[in-house]
């Protein structure tokens, strides 16, 4: 569109300008076209790569889909020797650990971001903000090692055992706290993941809270609003999109996280029956088993990878759809 308009405006300058002006204009027009094409090809490259990944995943996964059909998604089995594969165990492990991570990380991140933008004394704002950003730069394997050697033993003794003693016997929710208390499992993985995604979500939330125009905020305070009312009625509605984006960024990282999860989730190809039972996630199954996989096993692993892609896509799509609906409801 913009290229079209520049092209249309050229002849005017051609008629009025001198010869040198004409050559300059021509050169600039060429430069513009060149620039446009280059940047366009860069962005197309992303699309090509994306399509390439989807297609190659699907082609490699085809034997598994062909054998098991759609049942592959909810078939509860992962038996390498007998070549019986289903994705249900890994999908449940992935969604459960990522869900737990978000349940813990989002409220915490929200609190951190609010404190940093609304009530934090100015001298503390810089060091605290930098600390949050630094936390986001820690490689995931460090979280995994921290999880395995520091967090898991403490978690087993001071969380799993008391929780099982207190809540394990209760009706309805008691089963969630059953099983062995060795520090591994879905809940442990979820908590380590929460540590990992917390800085991402918090940093994004802080940044978007900061872009709320001071005049809106100050007007609300001027009307006598409390801090919470300002946040609830001014900051959140204004930054809704950014907040959801931050949460989705965290969810995306939690869904795809490999090393940190592998260290603490227990890597057991069984359907988890409680929050403490070991399980496996799609990403950690891929990381563990690709090296020695052969024949049909490989295609089952590719099928898992493809499903992770689909899950991520669905989650992002849902988030977008929710945003659009919320904006419609507001009449925007």
């Amino acid at each position, binding site marked *: 569109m913009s290229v079209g308009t520049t092209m249309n405006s050229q002849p005017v300058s051609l008629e009025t300008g001198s010869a040198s002006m004409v050559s300059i204009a021509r050169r600039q027009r060429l430069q513009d076209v060149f620039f446009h094409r280059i940047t366009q090809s860069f962005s197309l490259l992303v699309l090509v790569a994306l399509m390439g990944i989807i297609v190659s995943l699907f082609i490699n996964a085809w034997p598994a889909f062909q054998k098991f059909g759609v049942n592959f998604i909810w078939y509860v089995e992962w*038996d*390498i020797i007998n070549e019986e594969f289903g994705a249900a165990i890994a999908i449940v492990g992935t969604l459960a650990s990522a869900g737990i991570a978000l349940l813990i990380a989002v409220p915490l991140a929200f609190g951190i971001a609010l404190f940093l933008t609304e009530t934090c004394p100015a001298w503390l704002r810089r060091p605290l903000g930098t600390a949050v950003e630094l936390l986001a730069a820690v490689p995931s394997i460090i979280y995994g090692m921290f999880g*395995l050697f520091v967090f898991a*033993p403490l978690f*087993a003794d001071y969380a799993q055992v008391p929780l099982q003693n207190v809540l394990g016997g209760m009706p309805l929710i008691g089963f969630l706290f059953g099983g062995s208390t*060795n*520090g591994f499992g879905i809940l442990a993985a979820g908590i380590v993941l929460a540590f990992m995604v917390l800085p991402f979500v918090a940093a994004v939330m802080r940044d978007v809270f900061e872009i709320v125009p001071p005049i809106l905020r100050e007007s609300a305070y001027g009307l006598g609003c409390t801090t919470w009312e300002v946040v609830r009625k001014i900051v959140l509605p204004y930054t809704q999109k950014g907040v959801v984006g931050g949460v989705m960024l965290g969810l995306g990282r939690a869904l795809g996280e490999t090393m940190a999860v592998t260290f603490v989730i227990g890597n057991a*190809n069984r359907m988890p029956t409680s929050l403490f039972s070991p399980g496996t996630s799609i990403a950690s199954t891929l990381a563990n088993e690709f090296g*020695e996989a*052969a024949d049909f096993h490989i295609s089952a692993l590719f099928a898992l990878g493809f499903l992770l892609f689909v899950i991520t896509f669905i989650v992002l799509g849902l988030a977008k759809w929710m945003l659009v609906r919320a904006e419609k409801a507001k009449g925007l």
Partner: protein
Amino acid sequence: MNTKRTLLKTVAAAALATMAMGNAFAADITGAGATFPFPVYAKWAEAYKKETGTGLNYQSIGSSGGLKQIRAKTVTFGASDAPVSGADLEKDGMIQFPAIIGGTVPVINLDGFKPGELRVTGPVLADMFLGNITKWNDAKLVALNPGKALPDASITIVHRADGSGTTFNWTDYLTAVSKDWADKVGKGAAVKWPAASSVGGKGNEGVAANVNRVKGALGYVEYAYVKKNKMNFMQLQNADGKYVSPDDTAFAAAAASADWFSVPGMGISMVNAKGAASWPVSTASFILMYKQPEDKVASAEALKFFDWAFKSGKQMAADLDYVALPDSLTDQIRSKVWSQIAK
């Protein structure tokens, strides 16, 4: 412009020439496969390079990766912990020979017991891994360890999360000693672990870390990791009914009792080997090469390397807690197996 181009050409030609010369004088031997023997192959390679100037480029990508690479002919030799069957060797036109021996050990984390103080038989061990025995003070374990104060603690089974030759050897042993295990689970580089308490660790070091961390854990690792991490282990009853501790001599005894040429491709399973001193989960790691190699020079270089390793690499292997093959066996490998490779 012209001089620039000539200069470029000269440089390119010189670079090509050096590369070609490098190839002619020190063709590196290439191999890929099993991770279990990697430390000893690396050590041999280092010493061999010092002596002869010929290097070895070994990628420890795992046994099945090694098979893929040798079948794709991207390497001179492949290495695998699980032997390839005689029929497959025939089909691919390959030979196979053992290069190094080691053992897999049941390791535990129980306070108050010295390494090797607790004893277990193969069938009871299989019951523990099946999840039929879930407590350390189970009647079957108490019966094997009279007078020992076994605690009322849950058993957490720790296994390899990644596919591995170690798991193949371990499940091969459990399959040999327990019909229940053979029916329900079987053997393979990765199996469906039946015990409800089982958790996976990545690599030998991952299993070792998990066992050392969880009280009441029972896992299996290569012997070298037992020594390196000073782990507590159990004595295991062998085929002759004797309880043995894992060490070099017990692995060597198992290797000595084996009838290597009873199976085409020397692909015997050394698990549950006969002999009073034999460690029952001793295993060999195998080398695969083509009978009609595409690159005969490289193939001959690889054989030279293994010949040297069999002769001079014994102490290096022992330093790393592997067991080198006995001379009687290496002589037979030279005369019966290597002779099949076209020179």
